């Protein structure tokens, strides 16, 4: 036991003496939370749209009033007057403006005659997000104009308010569980995988192996140390991330206990997996090369960035065996849904069994000799 704790002691002293590892494991997930959370969660504003009016009738005026109210209220776009359709198309193509609305001759007359009135919309669909947003807005304008006046205004008023109240926090919150998982993954990757291989290459293990330490003491010492580091990274990110995302859950003791349980089993699971992957590796380049590949294989199929429900079957299958899936599911249940212990017990069980299982497979593969 004293020998196992000597290994843990060395790792922990090293860990606290060079805080770089901790900073590195927290930096990327926090940046991810801040940048991706804000970049992807926001709605489109300030697009420029050309209006080519060949009609000038009363219905065309109504349409332009509707555009003006969008420009003032939700600000998706503002309008610029063009006289020439060809010029407008050219400017959309070169990116000077984002879209063009063409109101054809006889538009008002056709509306009154109910003779299939049509408005032309030219969008730059190389940017799906912007064009989709403009198209959506246009559809609702057109829909509003073809139904009685009062109702759609009320409806759009309400929809508008919901969006304005939570401009982007929704996506930021959605990302938080993924970022906690990411911080723990990086910690395990660097603090477990890379340091372990580097120590091997540097001869530190040779130093251990000439002492009477047993294989089990060495394996458990190394894994315990790596798991503790991951737990610390997980706790730090949960606290910092919750504050950034404005989640109050961390102030509830019961939720804290649930979070801690999730963090611990996640550390066990990630660490067991990493140890199994690294147990026979000698070349320090291997974990560095694996970092990105593993990240791709584990992170994206887990539903961290996009709901699993939208995955094709093969990707779903991958997500079933991916410990990230359970980790993120558990954190979501506590952080976003306040699901309580029942909601996370299967996640806890899976992660724990996964971690212990991989460790049990890895231990016999660990060589007590060089």
């Amino acid at each position, binding site marked *: 036991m004293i020998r196992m704790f000597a*290994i843990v*002691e060395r790792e922990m002293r090293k860990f606290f003496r060079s805080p770089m590892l901790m900073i590195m494991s927290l930096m990327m997930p926090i940046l991810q939370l801040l940048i991706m959370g804000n970049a992807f969660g926001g709605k489109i504003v300030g697009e420029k749209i050309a209006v080519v009016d060949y009609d000038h009738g009363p219905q065309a005026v109504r349409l332009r009033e509707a555009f003006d109210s969008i420009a003032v209220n939700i600000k998706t776009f503002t309008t610029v007057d063009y006289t020439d359709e060809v010029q407008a198309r050219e400017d959309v193509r070169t990116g000077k403006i984002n879209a063009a609305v063409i109101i054809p001759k006889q538009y008002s007359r056709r509306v009154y005659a109910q003779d299939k009135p049509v408005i032309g919309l030219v969008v730059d669909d190389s940017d799906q997000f912007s064009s989709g947003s403009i198209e959506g807005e246009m559809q609702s304008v057109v829909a509003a104009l073809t139904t009685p006046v009062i109702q759609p205004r009320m409806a759009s008023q309400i929809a508008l308010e919901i969006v304005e109240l939570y401009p982007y926090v929704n996506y930021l919150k959605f990302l938080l569980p993924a970022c906690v998982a990411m911080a723990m993954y990086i910690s395990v990757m660097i603090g477990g995988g890379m340091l372990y291989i580097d120590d091997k290459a540097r*001869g530190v293990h040779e*130093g251990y192996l000439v002492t009477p330490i047993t294989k089990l003491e060495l394996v458990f010492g190394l894994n315990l140390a790596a798991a503790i580091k991951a737990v610390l990274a997980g706790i730090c990110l949960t606290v910092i991330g919750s504050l950034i995302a404005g989640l109050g859950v961390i102030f509830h003791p019961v939720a804290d206990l649930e979070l801690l349980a999730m963090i611990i089993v996640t550390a066990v699971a990630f660490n067991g997996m990493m140890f199994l992957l690294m147990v026979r590796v000698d070349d320090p380049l291997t974990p560095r090369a694996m970092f990105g590949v593993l990240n791709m294989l584990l992170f994206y199929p887990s539903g961290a960035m996009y709901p699993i429900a939208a995955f094709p079957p093969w990707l779903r299958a991958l997500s079933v065996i991916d410990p990230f899936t359970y980790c993120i599911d558990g954190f979501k249940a506590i952080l976003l849904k306040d699901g309580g212990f029942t909601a996370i017990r299967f996640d806890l069980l899976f992660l724990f069994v996964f971690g212990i299982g991989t460790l049990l497979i890895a231990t016999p593969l660990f060589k007590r000799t060089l």
Partner: protein
Amino acid sequence: MSTPAIAVEHIVKRYGDFEAVKDVSFSVAEGEIFGLLGPNGAGKSTLIRMMTTLIPLTAGKAIVAGHDVAKEADAVRHLIGVIPQALTSDPDLTVEENLSIYAKLYSVPKAERVKNIAEVLEAVDLTKWRGAQVKTLSGGMRRRVEIARGLVHNPSIFFLDEPTTGLDPVSRIAVWEMLSNLRAKRNLSILITTHYMDEADKLCDRIAIVDHGKLVALGTPIELKHSVPGANVVEVHFDRETPEWQARLECLDGVTSVQAESEGFYRVLTSSGSKTTMQLVELAASLGETLTSLSVQNTTLDDVFVHYTGRQLRDEQVKPPVFTLPPRPGAQP
């Protein structure tokens, strides 16, 4: 005669088809400093690793401190101290923390741990630096930390793999003195590997010369030097190179071998330095050739090495190790 500290019998290590150690046998007496001398890649580290339970033997037997390394590895590990070739003390930790962690790895109880650490720090003259992070120390001091670390559990046999490689001459001599003192005070048996001839000569009681995995010579430095035909070495440098000199030198009285070292530079082994020198000077004068330098020395281990291996140790290409990390920022060379 007491039982030897180390007895190695016909040990072999094969990596696939490659035989890194070929049927080596020797024994190290208690209290002896025994040197394994050989160029890079000779198999010295492989030998040490087999004796210190780090790698299994392919064949043969190694008894260390009375225990078979293959069958009683744990007993052996308790009784030996090992300093691997690479510097493996943790640069981020202090000297004392490094020692303390190793003492714990040997399950040394607390009271004894404190006492032992104080003693070994004193022995390697690092008491003042006990609280310093290892990365702040010089190369020579780091080696001394390693030496102290290998001794925290009071082993009876001490293995050191190239403890002076990369050190400046002053630090090297300090390490030799330290090892000699430790041996005297602690009744240690020491096995050391080196590729420095002078080091083996000055420090070791007995030397085994290893080349290409084979043990090619074994004895005290004096025995080894005597085993080479010729008692002196005459080094002569001619003004200009003439191919005939090789043959001419071989004909002189007492000469046992002539090695051409470089343009016009020869090392001549002879049983009588003075006679050979006189004849050489006369011969050169009669031929009208000029000598730029001439010296007479006793044979050294270099000559022993050349005699047994047919080549010069210092000519050996230094093979890059299989893989090394780039030095950490702030690490001392």
